[in-house]
């Protein structure tokens, strides 16, 4: 961004700490009156060097580190790391364990969308909504807690299986929570679709077309809101997703309103997936019997090789490239988070909009600085 300002122009620095921002990052915007002329993002305020840390941790320790990339996506982050190692080492996951993984990952997708929507509603001036979503999310967190033993950083997956089996009465608990949550999601949709001020602030704001979104590398709900159905669960199925009946939620408008609508639909679809899993889940072991790697084996050597694996995180495509040199630690790990390309698109997207709309557009992207900085 050119830092020289002309007449009636100014540079406004938003961040690194600001109520609108979800984690520390800085947005420098050049304004002419209320209109954005140019903008620039500065990152790196919470760079943790997680990829370098992973190179110095054994494979079992790595699971714990992966949780810390972003606590909302903790389960899918674990899944991509564990999936890489399973591909490299050729470990088969028993079917029951695969179902449990799908259940917990879909539950975590719902809670991520709930928090994202609450935060976003707060950004556009709808603070009560945040209280609603946080309240309804709490039941879900207890459900996740009952399975994994932790609310946010679970460390639940193991190479070839999961840590624990489903607790007694999990199906009934899930049915009860989903009953309430379905009503809540319907209520959110009604609130969003009947509020004229909200619609005036979000409809037609921050529009992305499918071609532009693909060109910019956007993934996840912002891409699906443009009408293009790209979902790793469908296009490159992992676990048991190919046996499950679900649809990829899309919307055609590509604006802020559509992105929220896609998340609402995805929450319903995730509940549908979890219910199917609970009906179909077979009995059996949750850990392979003939494996050279014990469930808590501290030392585990993975054959040399390299692999790229990707899963669908709540925010989009989560990929990982891993190189193993045959030792008990990965040689190189690259985390390809979904927010990393999405956040880059903010400067072209907010060009020419009003200052108040920056917040709506950035909020609807559901970005996470912790994941970008890693």
């Amino acid at each position: 961004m050119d830092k020289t300002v002309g007449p009636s122009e100014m540079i406004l620095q938003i961040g690194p700490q600001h109520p609108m921002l979800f984690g520390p990052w800085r947005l420098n915007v050049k304004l002419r009156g209320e209109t954005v002329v140019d903008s620039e993002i500065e990152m790196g305020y919470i760079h943790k060097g997680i990829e370098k840390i992973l190179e110095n941790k054994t494979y079992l320790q790595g699971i714990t580190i992966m949780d810390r990339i972003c606590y909302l996506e903790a389960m899918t982050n674990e899944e991509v790391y564990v999936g890489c190692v399973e591909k490299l080492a050729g470990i088969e996951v028993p079917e029951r364990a695969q179902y449990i993984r799908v259940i917990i990952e879909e539950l975590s997708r719902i809670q991520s969308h709930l928090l994202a929507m609450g935060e976003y509603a707060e950004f556009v001036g709808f603070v009560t909504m945040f209280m609603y979503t946080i309240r309804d999310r709490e039941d879900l967190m207890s459900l996740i807690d009952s399975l994994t033993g932790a609310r946010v950083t679970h460390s639940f997956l193991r190479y070839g299986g999961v840590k624990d089996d489903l607790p007694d009465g999990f199906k009934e608990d899930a049915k009860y929570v989903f009953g309430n949550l379905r009503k809540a999601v319907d209520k959110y949709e009604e609130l969003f679709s009947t509020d004229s001020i909200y619609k005036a602030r979000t409809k037609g704001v921050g529009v992305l077309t499918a071609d532009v979104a693909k060109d910019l590398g956007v993934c996840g709900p912002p891409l699906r809101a443009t009408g293009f159905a790209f979902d790793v669960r469908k296009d490159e199925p992992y676990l048991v997703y190919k046996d499950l009946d679900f649809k990829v939620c899309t919307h055609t408008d590509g604006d802020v309103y559509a992105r929220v609508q896609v998340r609402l639909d995805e929450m319903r679809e995730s509940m549908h997936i979890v219910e199917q899993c609970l009906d179909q889940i077979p009995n059996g072991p949750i850990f392979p019997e003939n494996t050279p790697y014990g469930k808590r084996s501290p030392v585990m050597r993975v054959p040399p090789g390299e692999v790229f694996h990707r899963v669908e995180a709540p925010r989009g495509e989560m990929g990982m490239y891993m190189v193993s040199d045959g030792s008990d630690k990965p040689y190189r790990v690259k985390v390809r988070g979904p927010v990393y390309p999405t956040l880059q698109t903010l400067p072209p997207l907010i060009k020419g909009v009003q200052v108040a709309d920056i917040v709506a557009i950035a909020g609807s992207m559901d970005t996470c600085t912790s994941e970008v900085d890693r």
Partner: protein
Amino acid sequence: MDANSIISSLTGKFPEDIYDASVESDIRIVAKVKPENVVEVCRYLKEDLSFGHLCCELGADYPDRNEIETVYIIGSYDHPVVITMKALLPRDNPEIESIVAVYWNANWYERETYEMYGVKYLNHPDLKPLLLPEELHGEWPWRKDYKGFPNKTARNLV
């Protein structure tokens, strides 16, 4: 389009530049590319083979071979194949042409690889550090022989 036809199309178009190409599975291809022509190869991948989705771009350090790899992982919105393409660069002076002109979102990936590994991307629109503070610039901290920052930790300042 399946993996085998993609590989034969790619090696047929660039017999000199693409080498060690192989099919790992139905949906994964690996190949190596000569650094000089990486932009033309990427443009061909995007425009003719519909690899429109740059999953990521990264660096990897191999001190025993005295090489730094730039790895391009490129997927598609139309078919499920993902190609992992590597360019090998000398470790003492890694330089390669930037692919931002082809894949817009390579911008931050290249800035990150530059600050972490010291790979210089030529013709990049704005090549400057993305994540690291200024005082770490030039240390290339993700190279394997990096020993930490002994003079820059809080313990040594006190």
